[in-house]
């Protein structure tokens, strides 16, 4: 049995005016760290709410830990941990009280699960009497994760846990997830940051309620079937406009310190450099596609 099975799941809001999710299907293996990668409006939160049984689908079906999300919603609720995108603990309760509260809701005590949450909770334990509302963003996140784990869920749903968090804290958070994965917990996590994809076993790229592609981070970029170059010059803005007008250029977009140039078969590096020889400091070299290049390509398809 798979941890999560999703079959043509759809959900709309406002009497069908907003299609949040359009026939989404995929499966998550037991013990897998699965990433949903996509911008706001991709349908990530809707999918989380459906799978945690907080919403009902318009069409399609799904199971979580083998239970149907509509008919057997009750069984699912005690088996999953859910960390919503917005901080949703009680700001007026202390760190410790929040943890005890969630333990009581699930009919467990904190001691039983302490071994599981310890690597995360220990970092905020010195502040256990502080009100949750007074914690820093990073500490709130650790408390929320501890609370989501208190009943030893088999599947963890994390909705954009790293949004708005700086690069160092983000990296630490992914280290914590890797630790939980080692304990056998299945994790479905969403993020708008493409660079976090490499921390997942498999990813689904999603946009506007649809899945654009599913694979391992490594294999998903192998689907990039155009030649890709990195180009740079002294004036990057001029370069962008000139490059776009060249023959064989499918598209050209800023990509960190270089622009990425997607080329078709008619593109010739020699011709490119000759025709743009008046551009000061022009450089062109082959580049390796990344998840973000693939995402852009799939979005435009």
């Amino acid at each position, binding site marked *: 049995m798979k941890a999560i099975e999703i079959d043509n799941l759809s959900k709309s809001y406002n009497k069908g005016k907003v299609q949040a999710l359009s026939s989404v299907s995929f499966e998550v293996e037991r013990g897998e760290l699965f990433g949903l990668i996509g*911008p706001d409006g991709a349908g990530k939160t809707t999918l989380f709410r459906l799978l945690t049984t907080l919403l009902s689908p318009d069409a399609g079906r799904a199971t979580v830990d083998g239970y149907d999300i509509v008919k057997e919603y009750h069984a699912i609720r005690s088996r999953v941990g859910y960390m919503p995108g917005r901080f949703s603990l009680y700001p007026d309760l202390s760190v410790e009280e929040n943890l005890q509260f969630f333990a009581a809701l699930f009919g467990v005590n904190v001691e039983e699960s302490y071994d599981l949450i310890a690597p995360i909770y220990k970092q905020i334990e010195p502040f256990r009497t502080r009100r949750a509302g007074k914690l820093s963003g*990073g500490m709130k996140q650790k408390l929320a994760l501890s609370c989501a784990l208190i009943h030893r869920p088999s599947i963890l749903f994390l909705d954009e846990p790293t949004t708005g968090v*700086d690069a160092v804290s983000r990296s630490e958070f992914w280290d914590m997830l890797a630790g939980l994965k080692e304990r056998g917990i299945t994790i479905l996590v969403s993020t708008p940051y493409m660079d976090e994809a490499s921390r997942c076993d498999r990813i689904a790229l999603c946009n506007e309620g649809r899945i654009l592609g599913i694979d391992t981070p490594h294999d998903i970029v192998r689907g990039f079937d155009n030649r890709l170059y990195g180009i740079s010059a002294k004036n*990057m803005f001029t370069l962008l406009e000139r490059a776009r007008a060249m023959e064989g250029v499918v598209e050209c977009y*800023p990509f960190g310190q270089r622009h990425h140039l997607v080329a078709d078969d008619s593109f010739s590096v020699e011709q490119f450099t000759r025709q743009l020889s008046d551009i000061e400091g022009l450089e062109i070299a082959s580049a390796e596609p990344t998840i973000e290049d693939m995402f852009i390509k799939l*979005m435009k398809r």
Partner: protein
Amino acid sequence: MNSEIVISVRELTKRFGDFTAVDRISFDVHRGEIFGFLGANGAGKTTAMRMLCGLSYPTAGSGSVAGFDVMREGEKIKRHIGYMSQRFSLYNDLTVWENMRLFAGIYGLNRRETEERASALLKRLNFEAERDTLVGSLPLGWKQKLSFAIATIHRPEVVFLDEPTGGVDPVTRRQFWELIYEAASEGTTIFVTTHYMDEAEYCSRVSIMVDGEVRALDTPARLKQQFAAESMDEVFRTLARGAQRGE
């Protein structure tokens, strides 16, 4: 680079009780520069930015923004800058045109100037067809582009962008940066914060704050050289790992 200085601060400091949120920061930003203002959560970026925008007075130090004194002329600074926050701050229940008119009015443009600049912005954004559309019904990426346009409707010398591309898809994110490039090439100074390290590479210069201080400030190329790093992400991590204080 144009040598005219639009933002200049020396030893700028903000204390809250005995906590020093911003600790003697000094730098200059030139006209037409895209100045990246990075730092870990809690490093003091927001506090520093609030002082530069005239929203909070420094405890000590000196400086000027768009020619006005940060110690005394907060109100004048507010009128001469543009500001766009990550949290969408246009009015969803007003149309595109009404939002433009409202903000133009707040910045003191007269009817003719408003008409002229709003029309020019609509044209540049290819938004002419959406003139009478309620802003609330626009896709997120469009809203962000519109926010940027409105933040520059009064042709401010400097625009402050606080994480302008959070949650935006990669295609729109790039279109947004092209608007920034364009504004900068026309002489608008851009002061921008971001958590996307690839975006730090688009900046003319980047400063990195740690524990209230500016620990590094240079072009992305020279910072990478200085820290023997392949990317700005690596530079950032090297500096931010040494942070003593949390958020």
